[in-house]
C-alpha cells in the first residue's frame, strides 16, 4: 500500500473526474497487491463516484465482512457507507475492527475521525472503546466517555435500548471518577443526573458545589433541576436568596421566582420581595408585569406599566420589553399612559421646535411611534401617520449633529416606519414607491453613515429594483465577514444567478463562500481542544455548531447559484461544485417523508439565515405586505433546493434510470405545494417535468402539454409592457430563466437523444426555437420601453418630493437627479446582460 506515486495518480484522476482512468489505475494496483484491502476499498469508492452505487455497496459490505484493520481502508469504507446513507455500517466497520484487533492506535484514529466528522454516535462508541483499552490511571478517558454518553443521549436516531442505556452508563462512568475536581466535571455529573431523571439530586450536588465556587453554568442548571423536580418551595427559596442575599439581579432568577410563586400561590409574598428589592432595576420593574401575567388578579395594573415607563420609557429596550406584556392591558389604556409620559416630558415643545431635543426625548418619541404602529394595525396604510413620523424625525434630527459619529441614532427608525408605510400604501405599481424609499433612505444614510438597518433596507430595495451594483455597495459598507457570510449573504445572493449571472457576481460568491473552506477543520480542531482542556460544557455546542455550519442551507443555496452562473457562462469545470451539491441533495430530505421522526443535525440542512435583522428595528415583526414587495421571490427552503437540484440532475442525466425517476417524483411533489417558487421557476419546472415524462415514461401526451406550456406562458414571462416587471428584478429573473429553460431543453435533447425519435426531436427543437426567438425579439425592445417608463417615473417622484404640500422630506431636485442617475447606470448594467442572451 506504500505505493505513493501510483496512489497520487489515482487521486489526481478522481479529482479531475476521470473515473474510468482512476479505475484502470486502481485495477493495476489490485493486481500488484492482491492482499491489500486498501485498493479494494478504493476501487469501491471510485465505483460509487462513477454512479455504480449498488455494486459499490455490495463490494464494500463483502470487504467489511472480512474485518480489515488497515486505517486507510477503514476510513474509505466509512466514507462510502456514509455517502450512501448506511450510517450503521459506517460505524460497524470500525466497531468490528476494534473488537477483533483491539489496538489502541486503531481506536484512537476512530475517535479522531469521529471528531473530524462531528459524528456523535461514533464519538460515543470510540470513547467507550478507548476506556476499555486505554490508560485509565487518570480519569481522563472516563470523563470523555461520560461526556460523550451525555451528548449522545440527546440523539433522535438512538434505539430504544440505547436511549435507556446511555444515560445510565454515563452516570456510572462519571461516578467512577469521584471525587470530582472542578466545575466542568461537575457539569457532566449533574447533567447526567438530570438525564436520568434525578433532578433533586442534581440540585443538591450543585448547591454544595456553589458553596465553594461561583459558576454560572451550574447556577442555571440548579434552577432548571428544581423546576424539573417541581420542587417549588426550594426553587422559591433559592431565587429569593439569589436576589436578596447574593443580589443576583438576573431575569432567569426573577422569572423562576415568579413561576415557583404561582405554583405555590405565594402572590403577596412575591409582591413584597419585588417591592423590597433595593434597586428599581429593569428586571425588577418587569417582574411586576410577569407576576401579573401569571396571576391576573393584581389591582392597579396601570401603575406597574407607569413605573416601568417612568424609568425606561426613554430607553430603546422599552418596546421589546413591554411588547410581550401588552396582552394584559387594553391598548387604549396603555397608549394613555404613554401619552402622559409624552406630555410630562414636554415633547410638544420639541415638536414645535421651541427647544432642542435631548437623547431621552428622542427615544421616548421613537418608542411612542413604535407602540402606536404596533397597536394600531391601520397605521400601516395611514398617510397621516407617515407625516407624523416625518415630523418627529425633523424635530429630532438635530441630535445627529451632536452624537458621536459611530453612535446609534434612534431617529432613523421614524424613517424606517415611514418607508414601510409608503410601500404598504402602494396599490399596484410599486416601482415609484421603491424609488421614493430609496431617495429617503439614501438621504438618511448620508447623515448617519454607520446605521446598519438603513443599509440593509437599501440592499433589499436596490436588489428589488434590479440594481445589483448599488445593493452591493451598501452590502460591502457593512463589512460583512466570516460567520456573517453564512447568516447574511442571502440578502445579496438570493436568486443571483437569474439576476446577475456575471463573472463579477461569481467572484463575489466565491469570495464569500471561502468562509466554509477551512471551517470544518477549524471547528473540529477546537472541538478536540474542548476535550483536552476539559471545557466540557462547550463540547455539545461545538458539535452542534460544526454540523450546522457544515450543513448550512445558505452555503448550498450559494453553491447552487455558483453552479448556475457557471452553467450560464458555459463553464464546464463544475465537478467540484456538483459534488458539493450532491451532498446537499442527500441532506435536503423532504420533511414530509421524515415526519415519522425528527432528524438529527447530521442528517439535515440547517437554515442559519438571519431574516429577523431587517425587522429588528421598528416593531420587531416582519410585515407581510411590505416583505412581499422587497424580497426577491418566495423563501428558498430545503424543498426549493432539493427540487432545483433534482431538475439539474435530470438535465445532466449522469445518473442511473431509477435516480431519474426519483428526481422526477421530487419535482412532481414540489409542484403540488408550489409556494417555494416564482412563477417563472414553476413554469420551468413544468417544462422539465413534461420533457422528463416524455422521455422516461414514453408518455406522448407530454409533448402536447409541453407545447401548450411554451405557447401559453411565453408572453407572460417575456412581456415588456408591464412597468413593474420592466423596472424590477423580475425582468432579469424572467428572461434569464427562460433562457436557461431554452438551454436546458437543448441539453435534454442531447443527453436523452437515444430515447427521443426524430419527429419528436424536431418538434421540440421547433418549440425551443420559438422560445429563443421570442426572447431575443423582446429583449431588443427593453431599452426603449424602460426609458419611457423612467421619464414618467422621474416626474412623478420629483413632484412627490418637491411639490407636495402635505409632506416635505427636505430633499433637493439635484439629490433626486443623482439617485436617478446612479439607479439608471446600475440597472442598465444589469439589464445589459439580457442583450447578450
Amino acid at each position: 500500500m506504500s505505493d505513493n506515486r501510483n496512489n497520487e495518480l489515482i487521486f489526481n484522476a478522481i479529482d479531475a473526474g476521470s473515473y474510468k482512468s482512476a479505475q484502470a489505475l486502481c485495477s493495476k494496483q489490485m493486481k500488484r497487491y492482491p492482499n491489500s484491502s486498501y485498493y479494494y476499498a478504493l476501487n469501491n469508492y471510485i465505483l460509487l463516484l462513477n454512479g455504480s452505487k449498488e455494486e459499490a455497496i455490495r463490494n464494500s459490505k463483502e470487504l467489511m465482512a472480512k474485518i480489515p484493520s488497515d486505517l486507510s481502508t477503514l476510513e474509505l469504507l466509512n466514507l462510502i457507507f456514509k455517502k450512501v446513507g448506511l450510517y450503521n455500517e459506517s460505524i460497524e466497520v470500525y466497531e468490528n475492527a476494534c473488537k477483533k484487533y483491539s489496538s489502541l492506535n486503531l481506536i484512537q484514529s476512530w475517535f479522531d475521525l469521529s471528531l473530524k466528522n462531528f459524528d456523535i454516535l461514533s464519538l460515543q462508541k470510540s470513547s467507550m472503546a478507548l476506556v476499555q483499552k486505554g490508560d485509565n490511571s487518570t480519569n481522563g478517558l472516563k470523563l470523555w466517555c461520560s461526556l460523550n454518553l451525555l451528548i449522545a443521549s440527546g440523539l433522535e436516531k438512538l434505539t430504544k435500548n440505547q436511549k435507556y442505556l446511555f444515560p445510565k452508563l454515563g452516570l456510572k462512568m462519571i461516578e467512577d471518577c469521584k471525587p470530582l475536581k472542578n466545575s466542568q466535571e461537575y457539569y457532566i455529573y449533574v447533567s447526567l443526573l438530570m438525564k436520568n431523571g434525578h433532578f433533586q439530586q442534581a440540585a443538591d450536588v450543585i448547591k454544595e458545589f456553589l458553596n465553594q465556587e461561583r459558576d454560572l453554568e451550574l447556577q442555571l442548571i440548579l434552577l432548571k433541576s428544581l423546576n424539573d423536580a417541581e420542587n417549588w418551595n426550594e426553587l422559591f427559596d433559592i431565587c429569593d436568596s439569589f436576589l436578596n442575599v447574593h443580589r443576583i439581579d438576573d431575569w432567569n432568577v426573577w422569572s423562576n421566582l415568579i413561576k415557583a410563586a404561582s405554583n405555590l400561590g405565594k402572590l403577596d409574598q412575591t409582591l413584597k420581595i419585588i417591592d423590597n428589592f433595593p434597586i428599581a432595576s429593569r428586571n425588577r420593574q418587569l417582574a411586576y408585569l410577569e407576576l401579573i401575567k401569571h396571576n391576573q388578579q393584581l389591582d392597579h395594573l396601570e401603575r406597574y406599566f407607569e413605573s416601568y415607563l417612568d424609568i425606561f420609557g426613554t430607553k430603546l429596550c422599552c418596546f421589546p420589553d413591554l411588547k410581550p406584556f401588552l396582552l394584559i392591558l387594553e391598548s387604549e389604556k396603555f397608549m394613555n399612559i404613554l401619552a402622559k409620559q409624552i406630555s410630562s416630558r414636554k415633547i410638544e415643545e420639541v415638536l414645535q421646535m421651541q427647544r432642542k431635543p435631548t437623547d431621552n426625548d428622542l427615544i421616548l418619541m421613537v418608542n411612542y411611534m413604535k407602540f402606536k404602529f404596533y397597536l394600531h394595525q391601520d397605521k400601516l396604510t395611514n398617510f397621516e401617520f407617515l407625516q407624523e413620523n416625518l415630523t418627529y424625525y425633523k424635530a429630532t434630527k438635530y441630535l445627529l449633529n451632536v452624537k458621536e459619529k459611530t453612535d446609534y441614532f434612534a431617529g432613523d427608525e421614524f424613517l424606517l416606519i415611514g418607508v414601510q408605510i409608503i410601500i404598504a400604501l402602494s396599490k399596484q405599481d410599486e416601482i415609484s414607491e421603491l424609488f421614493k424609499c430609496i431617495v429617503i433612505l439614501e438621504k438618511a444614510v448620508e447623515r448617519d453613515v454607520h446605521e446598519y438597518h438603513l443599509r440593509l433596507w437599501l440592499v433589499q430595495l436596490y436588489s428589488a429594483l434590479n440594481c445589483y451594483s448599488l445593493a452591493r455597495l451598501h452590502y460591502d459598507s457593512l463589512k460583512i465577514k466570516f460567520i456573517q457570510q453564512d447568516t447574511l449573504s442571502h440578502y445579496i445572493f438570493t436568486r443571483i444567478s437569474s439576476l446577475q449571472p456575471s463573472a463579477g457576481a461569481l467572484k463575489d460568491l466565491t469570495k464569500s463562500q471561502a468562509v466554509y473552506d477551512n471551517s470544518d477543520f477549524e471547528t473540529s480542531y477546537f472541538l478536540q481542544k474542548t476535550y483536552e482542556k476539559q471545557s466540557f460544557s462547550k463540547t455539545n455546542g461545538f458539535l452542534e455548531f460544526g454540523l450546522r455550519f457544515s450543513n448550512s442551507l445558505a452555503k448550498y443555496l450559494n453553491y447552487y447559484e455558483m453552479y448556475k452562473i457557471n452553467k450560464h457562462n458555459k463553464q464546464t469545470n463544475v465537478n467540484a461544485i456538483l459534488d458539493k451539491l450532491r451532498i446537499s441533495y442527500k441532506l435536503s430530505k423532504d420533511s414530509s417523508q421524515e415526519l415519522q421522526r425528527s432528524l438529527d443535525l447530521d442528517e439535515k440542512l440547517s437554515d442559519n439565515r438571519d431574516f429577523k435583522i431587517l425587522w429588528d428595528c421598528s416593531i420587531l415583526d416582519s410585515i407581510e405586505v411590505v416583505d412581499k414587495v422587497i424580497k426577491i421571490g418566495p423563501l428558498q427552503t430545503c424543498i426549493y433546493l432539493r427540487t432545483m437540484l433534482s431538475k439539474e440532475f435530470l438535465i445532466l442525466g449522469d445518473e442511473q434510470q431509477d435516480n431519474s425517476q426519483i428526481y422526477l417524483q421530487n419535482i412532481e411533489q414540489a409542484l403540488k405545494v408550489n409556494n417555494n417558487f416564482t412563477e417563472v421557476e414553476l413554469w420551468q419546472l413544468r417544462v422539465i417535468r413534461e420533457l422528463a415524462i416524455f422521455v422516461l415514461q414514453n408518455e406522448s401526451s407530454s409533448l402536447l402539454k409541453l407545447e401548450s406550456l411554451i405557447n401559453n406562458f411565453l408572453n407572460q414571462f417575456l412581456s415588456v409592457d408591464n412597468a413593474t416587471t420592466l423596472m424590477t428584478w423580475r425582468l432579469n429573473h424572467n428572461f434569464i430563466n427562460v433562457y436557461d429553460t431554452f438551454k436546458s431543453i437543448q441539453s435534454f435533447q442531447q443527453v436523452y437523444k437515444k430515447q427521443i425519435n426524430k419527429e419528436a426531436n424536431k418538434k421540440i427543437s421547433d418549440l425551443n426555437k420559438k422560445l429563443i426567438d421570442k426572447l431575443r425579439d423582446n429583449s431588443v425592445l427593453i431599452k426603449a420601453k424602460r426609458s419611457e417608463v423612467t421619464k414618467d417615473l422621474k416626474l412623478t417622484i420629483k413632484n412627490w418630493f418637491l411639490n407636495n404640500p402635505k409632506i416635505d422630506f427636505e430633499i433637493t431636485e439635484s439629490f433626486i437627479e443623482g439617485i436617478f442617475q446612479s439607479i439608471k447606470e446600475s440597472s442598465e448594467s444589469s439589464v445589459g446582460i439580457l442583450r447578450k442572451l
Partner: protein
Amino acid sequence: MTSIVPFQATDLFTLNAINLDSLTENFQVFFYLQYLSDWPSLFFKSESPILFNNELLTTPSGYMMGKNEGHSKEWHTHITAVTISPTYRRLGLASHLCNHLQKSTEEEEPYYTYFIDLFVRCNNKLAITLYEKLGYSIYRRVVGYYSSSSGNINYEIDKNKTNDDVDAFDMRKSLKRDVNHECVRENGEKFNVLPEEVRF
C-alpha cells in the same frame, strides 16, 4: 429583562444585531472557538426575551469575551471584546458584563488575577467613559496598535507621533490581589509604548 448566560458556539449565528455595529470587531470563527475552549467561563452573553412574529424568543443583547494570561505579577484578566446591541444600550449592561467578569476572576477560586485590562481605541469616547466609571484608568498609550493588529509589526511607527484613530489606550483596574496597586499608574495617557511591547 436581562439574564447573563454562558456563550455557546451556536450563539455565533445570532449576533448580527450586535456585530453589525461599526465599532464591534468581527473575528474569524476559530478565534471565538479558541476563547470558548480555552476560557469557557470568561465568554458569556446577556440575553432578553423578545416577541417576534408572535413567537417568544430570546435574543442576545450583548456579550463579553475575556481571557487570563501573563506571568507572576502580570497574571491578569483581559477583556477582548465587550459590546451591546443598540437596542439595549445605556442600561448599564456593558458595566454589568464587566463586573461579572471581574467577580469571576478576582476571587481566589479559580483564577485570582492581579488586574483586569483592555485596549480601547483612543477616539472611542463612549467606551472610555464607561471604563472610567467602572474604575479603570489609562495605563499607557499603545501607539499604532490598530494599524498593526494584523499581526505584522510595523517598524515605521514613531512612539512620539500619536493618533487617536489608530492608537489604543491600555486601561487597567487593579483587583484585590494587587494589594499595593502596583499594576496601575497615574498619568498613564502620557506613557507611550509600541505594540510589540504589550505582548504577554
